[in-house]
């Protein structure tokens, strides 16, 4: 167990290391000159060169990378020879010269928005997906099953930007049931928070719920044909116990682990939903950083998102061993 954890964590760091290299070098060979972007339209070549030096972009790529990585562990100082050096304490993910702010604090501001978006949508789609999936499975082939399957097929086929725009148009603009979204922290103004988040949650939940309905239904139907469910019936257990304790316990395990990975993926930012509803989350930040060629910010967000997914993978694997005794961690 301990050996397994050590091995996995080491592997995790190796993966992040390789990822940071590829992200860093990939963005450095992209066209576009970050130094050129740091000052306005009319910019003297001398200023650009000065900025290039301040950003450290005149140094070899390898040196830049080493400084970047060491910044994460020990912090670093940007433009040390200028009159106003910028101190970036560990863990320093870089400094955005477009936004004149540390990457970490930009991310720290956007992350809660994405977190709430992801958690809310996650709870919605898990609840709806699993409930309707089980319901459909228990009424297989009859009209409730067909109705649920049809609706979920439609939900699954609609792109989220389409659902999002339709909802914005009708619910907010035409019928004015909800105010225009404007994000506030749930601790500050819960009412406005829920009014803002409701539609984005629905948009994100629809797509995933549709998928989980089908996944759950198939899992449950498959498990119902399994021998141990028949054994449970043959013991004379009430049908409810057969379904919940025997069939669902086995059938939902893979769903729980799939859900863990999907949640992690969402925690990295929901680009489309955040943009439609003007939510200042990681997805919006990522898109903006790309359009601005804000290299330090792009690198930071990519590494963070990757870390979340890698960690979630580990957690899901450990979780699997907890719920399924056949899975042994060695």
């Amino acid at each position: 167990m301990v050996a397994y954890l050590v091995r996995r964590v080491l592997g995790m760091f190796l993966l992040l290391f390789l990822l940071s290299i590829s992200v860093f070098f990939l963005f450095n060979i992209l066209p576009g000159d970050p130094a050129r972007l740091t000052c306005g339209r009319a910019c003297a070549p001398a200023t650009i060169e000065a900025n290039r030096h301040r950003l450290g972009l005149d140094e070899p790529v390898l040196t830049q990378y080493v400084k970047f990585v060491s910044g994460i562990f020990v912090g670093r100082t940007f433009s040390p020879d200028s009159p106003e050096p910028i101190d970036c304490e560990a863990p320093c993910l870089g400094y955005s010269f477009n936004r004149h702010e540390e990457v970490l604090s930009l991310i720290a501001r956007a992350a809660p928005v994405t977190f709430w978006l992801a958690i809310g949508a996650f709870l919605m789609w898990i609840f709806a997906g699993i409930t309707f999936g089980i319901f459909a499975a228990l009424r297989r082939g009859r009209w409730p099953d067909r109705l649920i399957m049809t609706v979920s097929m439609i939900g699954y086929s609609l792109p989220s930007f389409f659902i999002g725009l339709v909802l914005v148009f009708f619910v907010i603009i035409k019928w004015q049931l909800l105010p225009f979204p404007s994000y506030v922290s749930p601790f500050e103004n819960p009412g406005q928070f829920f009014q803002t988040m409701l539609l984005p949650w629905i948009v994100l939940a629809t797509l995933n719920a549709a998928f989980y309905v089908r996944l759950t239904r198939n899992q449950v139907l498959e498990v119902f044909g399994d021998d141990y469910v028949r054994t449970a019936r043959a013991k004379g257990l009430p049908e409810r116990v057969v379904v919940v304790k025997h069939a669902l316990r086995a059938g939902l395990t893979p769903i729980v682990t799939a859900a863990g990975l999907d949640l992690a993926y969402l925690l990295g930012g929901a680009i489309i939903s955040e943009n439609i509803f003007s939510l200042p989350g990681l997805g919006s930040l990522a898109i903006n950083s790309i359009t601005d060629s804000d290299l330090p910010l792009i690198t930071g967000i990519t590494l963070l998102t990757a870390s979340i997914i890698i960690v979630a993978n580990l957690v899901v694997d450990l979780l699997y061993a907890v719920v399924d005794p056949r899975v042994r961690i060695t």
Partner: protein
Amino acid sequence: MMPSGSSFDRPFLQVTDLAVAFPTEDGLVQAVDGVSLSLERGKTLAIVGESGSGKSVTAQAIMGLINRKAAKISGQIWLDGQELIALPQNEVQELMGSEIAMIFQDPMSSLHPFYRIGDQIIEAIRAHRDIGKAAARSETIDMLRRVGIPAVERRVDAYPHQLSGGMRQRVMIAMALINSPALLIADEPTTALDVTVQAQILELISNLQDEFGTTVILITHDLGIVADVADEVAVMYGGRIVELGRTAMIYERPEMPYTLGLLSSVPRMDKVLPERLDPIRGNPPSPIRLPKGCVFQPRCDYFERVSGGACLTVRPELLPSGPDHFVRCHLRVEERQQIAQDVLRVLAGS
């Protein structure tokens, strides 16, 4: 042992005209087509037949495991004076696991992979009896010991995947017998096991049967294991019983050509066969389109000996052919006995 009998003097188990059909998109699958049999308390009946003969469905119908919404069931099943098919679901559920218990073919997949074996047996106890966890646990340990699980105190908390196939089938047997059922249905209990383990499991079932006075229905496709354990044998084909009788009768004086075919296809260690093994030609009939007359006619070598082509058009009935011996065949008794003698003589290698 026969289908008939007055309602006053009913045998322990009596099945009358049992039919089970499953509606499918391709048509009605007639899995069991008028099965009648009876069994005295404490005896063992072997139901023999190949895949698709309806033997497992018959067993599951007796057990109450057929989903009544998904299947059409008709006929009567009397167990100890109680008719089961008309019973409401909750009463069937009470009987399952207490009065009637079942052992399944594949012990690998019949135990729940997520629960400890002890807990699974305890659950079976507490589904029917109002006793505490500790008492149920000690009873479970006791039963596991009786079915021959070594180091029980440790194994009781093992998960199924930590046990071998034979051990798992012993656990299944312990689970089935834990509430002292009057009727035990063993559906191919040894098919998934190694040959050496097969004998042990059969012996175990047989010993426990003597100990508990349990009545046993043994479902199998393997005639080789029947002779030692069964008092009576029912040979099933195409959803019908085609021959029924005391075990010795079926082995020594079989009459139905299908039974002869089964006996000829059993590998024998003690005799050198004149030729290679003699399988029955052709395939079992589709349960959606059963032949109009005799279900075995398309594969039968002798149907032309029956005048008027009755085998093709007239459904034969299961009729007495001597004491405790019933056969479903249009051939005249003397004729089929003659055929059987010829076949058995070849088998005996004389």
